[in-house]
């Protein structure tokens, strides 16, 4: 155990935690997205899926706890790294340019907290309904349609999911690098993998509010 704590004390140890929890959260987001896409099948299918999840009972709570822990560890480790990095350059450059860093890498530190804020909003909105103007417990389909019908609510979802996609684009690539899956032969594949899933998440999740706003599903 000491050895693991020693490892965690280092930046690579923390990044290992960030990477592993990041992948757990990614897999959840992916599953969550496929689950939700059942909205395109119809109200019954989506509501039945929701009911199925609710009926899992203790298992659902176990999964929720697991995901919550992953999230906490993810945020905790990254916050510690953030402060470490903040301290590593007390005096900034007057002129600093970058060559390789892309938008998704540069915005990780903003997209992360934004997604966290969105997550809280999302839970209050669709899970607890406390910030939903027309929330009916158990009728997920109705809640989604009526929620997304408000343009700015959809706007928040669309924006948040674009950020989520961006976050995954760098996050998934980093996942390989941080866990040491680096090999010149497969490195191109890493980038393609990350980009594919980033866009998949964006397209999949954004399709729902867009479909509601456009009136494709009612």
């Amino acid at each position, binding site marked *: 155990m000491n*050895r*693991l704590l*020693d*490892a965690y*004390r*280092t*930046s*690579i*140890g*923390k*990044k*290992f935690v960030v990477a592993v929890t990041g992948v757990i959260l990614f897999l959840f987001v992916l599953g969550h997205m496929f689950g939700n896409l059942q909205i395109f099948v119809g109200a019954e299918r989506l509501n039945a899926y929701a009911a199925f999840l609710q009926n899992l009972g203790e298992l659902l709570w176990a999964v929720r706890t697991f995901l919550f822990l992953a999230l906490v560890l993810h945020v905790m480790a990254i916050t510690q*790294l953030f402060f*470490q*990095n903040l*301290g*590593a*350059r*007390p*005096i*900034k*450059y*007057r*002129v*600093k*340019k*970058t*060559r*390789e*860093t892309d938008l998704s*890498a*540069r915005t*990780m530190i903003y997209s992360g907290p934004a997604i966290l804020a969105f997550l809280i909003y999302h839970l209050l909105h669709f899970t607890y309904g406390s910030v939903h103007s027309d929330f009916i417990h158990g009728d997920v389909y109705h809640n989604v349609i009526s929620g997304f019908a408000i343009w700015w609510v959809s706007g928040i979802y669309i924006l948040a999911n674009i950020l989520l996609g961006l976050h995954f684009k*760098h996050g998934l*690539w*980093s996942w*390989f*690098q*941080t*866990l*040491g*899956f*680096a*090999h*010149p032969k497969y*490195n191109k594949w890493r980038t393609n993998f990350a980009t594919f899933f980033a866009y998949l998440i964006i397209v999949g999740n954004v399709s729902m509010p867009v479909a509601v706003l456009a009136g494709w599903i009612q």
Partner: protein
Amino acid sequence: MKLKLNIWRQKNREDRGEFVTYHLDDVNSHMSFLEMLDVLNQQLIEKGEQPVAFEHDCREGICGACGLVINGYPHGPEEGTTTCQLHMRHFKDGDEITIEPWRSKAFPVVKDLVVDRSSLDRLMQHGGFVSIRTGSAEDANNTLIPKEKSDLAMDAAECIGCGACVASCPNGAAMLFVSAKVSHFALLPQGQPERKRRAIQMVQAMQDEGFGACTNYRECEAVCPKRISINFIGMLNREFIKASVLSGAEKGGKYRSK
């Protein structure tokens, strides 16, 4: 050509420091960047001012002493080039050039553009070697090393220890430096006995010296004058995780009752 130079001036470690602007005429395009600074310094001395202190030694791109952040790029705008090998033909008449020292908590400024990089030496003390006594080596050709492996180790071993990777990293991380050393030895049979120890200790030392953490911005490899790849950072991560998380502690070979 004529140049406008904004140069960081700082008297000593305690001084706050500031940018001072200088104008330089008659810069020859065949000059190296450091020769341009030499010319500036000669003029400053003749005017009775203090010359700009900057670090340099071999001036052929191998000792790793020089290093300036030039217009936002460590070692300047040319890729795969140290500051001393940068030539003025890459600038044009009327350019404004901002020159700053490496900025990192682990590299405190000593004077003007000179920084203290002894933290890199201290990282090396935590395992950047093979523990072999002089005289105890076997015949060099007894150990076969595949050419590809040896070449790859050489790619890593080419690191000149200039610290540009740290200077360029938005987080001030020393991962490329440490990864080059750890990979160099991890790839060779000579490095095997201390492989795990080395990875763990050097990574921990990096933490203690106040370097930042890698967030995979890839800036380090883009400014590395020896073009060392971040594939080695992947390798370092792998080495560290294997050594610290995945492998069991190498003890417990003796039975103890209670």
